[in-house]
């Protein structure tokens, strides 16, 4: 009995410790965002919302937020359908010995460090701009194209997992009842994959919205994402304004996850 109680206590400590480790930075950011003094020190000299007001007044954050939002929505809207199609091909097409290579290729962006991929894309964009005689760096389409790369590995993984649990007999039943292949896909396959696709949208959006490394070299004057704007700000000043911006970001992502979880149980998909 004593042993089991000891075990339970140890387990409780471990769980609390793990959660603490995960949540500590998040909580720290939120707390710091209301500290009154400019240089962060403890205890705070007072509590204020002034940093939120400051963040709101600095146009680079508002514009960065807008760019990041457009970018994340665009990359998700393009990347999730592409990734879903790729997952379908991976699980169903007769790919033979190409399957392994294709799988690795599609998951590749996860394995390449963001800065390296960003540099490669930068060099590619410079060359491509020369060919088409138009801007790609620092434009929204250029950024969206880059961020689609971030969304594909997540989508492929999540949709593949959903496909593995899918009862193919349901598709056969639909065909047996007279549905043509595209109707089967639209009416049966896609709705049955919904949890995976919804989760893929969520993760794609977050990946794109928070990405810094890949984006760093691809932004241009007047086209800066929120994470890059935060980094730029950091080069000149260190004050809790950044914590305020980060808190807003955390709230947005958290809200997104909560809303998504209402439609599909994330813990079952991921």
């Amino acid at each position, binding site marked *: 009995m004593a042993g089991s109680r000891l075990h339970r206590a140890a387990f409780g400590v471990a769980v609390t410790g793990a959660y603490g480790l995960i949540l500590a930075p998040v909580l720290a950011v939120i707390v710091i965002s209301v500290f009154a003094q400019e240089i962060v020190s403890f205890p705070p000299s007072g509590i204020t919302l002034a940093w939120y007001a400051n963040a709101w007044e600095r146009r680079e954050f508002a514009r960065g937020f807008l760019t990041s939002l457009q970018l994340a929505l665009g990359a998700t809207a393009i990347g999730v359908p592409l990734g879903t199609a790729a997952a379908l091909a991976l699980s169903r097409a007769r790919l033979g010995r190409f399957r392994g290579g294709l799988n690795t290729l599609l998951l590749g962006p996860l394995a390449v460090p963001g800065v390296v991929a960003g540099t490669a894309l930068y060099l590619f964009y410079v060359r491509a701009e020369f060919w088409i005689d138009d801007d790609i760096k620092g434009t929204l389409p250029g950024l969206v194209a880059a961020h689609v790369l971030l969304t594909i590995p997540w989508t492929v993984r999540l949709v593949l997992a959903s496909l593995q649990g899918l009862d193919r*007999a349901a598709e056969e039943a*639909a065909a047996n009842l007279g549905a043509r292949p595209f109707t089967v896909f639209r009416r049966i396959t896609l*709705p049955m994959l919904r949890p995976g696709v919804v989760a893929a949208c969520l993760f794609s959006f977050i990946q794109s919205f928070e990405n810094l490394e890949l984006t760093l070299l691809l932004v241009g004057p007047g086209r800066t994402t929120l994470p890059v704007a935060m980094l730029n700000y950091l080069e000149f000043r260190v004050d809790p304004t950044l914590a305020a911006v980060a808190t807003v970001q955390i709230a947005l992502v958290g809200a997104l996850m909560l809303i998504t979880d209402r439609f599909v149980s994330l813990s079952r998909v991921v």
Partner: protein
Amino acid sequence: MGTLTLDGLCRRYATTTAVERVDLEVAEGEFVALLGPSGCGKTTTLRMVAGFVAPSSGRILIAGRDVTHAPPHGRDTGMVFQSYALFPHMTVGENVAFGLEMRKVARAERDARVREVLRLARLDGLGDRLPRQLSGGQQQRVALARALVVNPAVFLLDEPLSNLDAKLRAEVRIEIRALQQRLGLTTLFVTHDQEEALTMADRLVVMERGRVRQIGTAEALYERPADAFVAGFIGRCNLLRGTPEAPGQFRTASGALLPCLPQPARPGDILALRPERIALRAAGDGLPARLAAVTYLGAQTEYHLDLAGTRLVAVAPTPAEGDARRGLAPGDAVLAHWDPAEARLLPAEPGDLLDDQA
């Protein structure tokens, strides 16, 4: 409703043959069961009829139309899957209406037909539920209703009872059979359960390793099996290896001489004898045997006989209290008697399991 014809149907894979030359005629309104152990090709045959597996050669005709190369959605079959394969994101009503929707049946008629078939399947009032809110038996009836509502030319059932518990299975068996007869459905049914096949089907097709071993009514298969495999697969049977000596005499591998049906040509060298056709006597005609074991099974008692080294199983209704045979015990001497017409000589193929190999 229509007829179904399989003409020399084959399915070969790179290294194996799943189905080899299946010829079958299913008459309009007839219920035919494909029966065999797992891997015998029965499911592949059914899936070829539905259009999910392309035949390597041979033809499939539904209501006289050659559908060998038609896609599944153009075949007019109604299939019930082993897993039921209900659409989890649609209500019961939407599931059942799906086939009518695909056939572009007008809204009002669709609703009426869905209501009618739900009533037929005893699912009234459940039209707005989702499949996961139903019991296994109800889900099974939704799958039946969904396949039936479109009036398919051929009704296909792929082990539809295997996910139900034993009591429900016996009920649904009777229900499906009654429905099939009332609606005159041409039906092809796949099962590995011989009791299911015997109780439901007009005719049975016994398959083994891709080939049809025998086609016939339950009685024909039981009384006149074509070979040792069918004899052993349908019901219980003593199957003894040996050689026919004189007409009506069979010498078992272990040396006993047993009376059998005198058959003109030499049909085979396996003696098949049903356990319940062997009578045990104290005196009179019969072969002397020693009881090796007696197993009381309630209504029946099983007697393991030793005839000079040849093992036979006999089954008889358990004798009443006071009957001398009630006291039979291992070691007792008895006389085993059977009508020679009950002991048939059958051919066997390598791999067919015989009693004396066990």
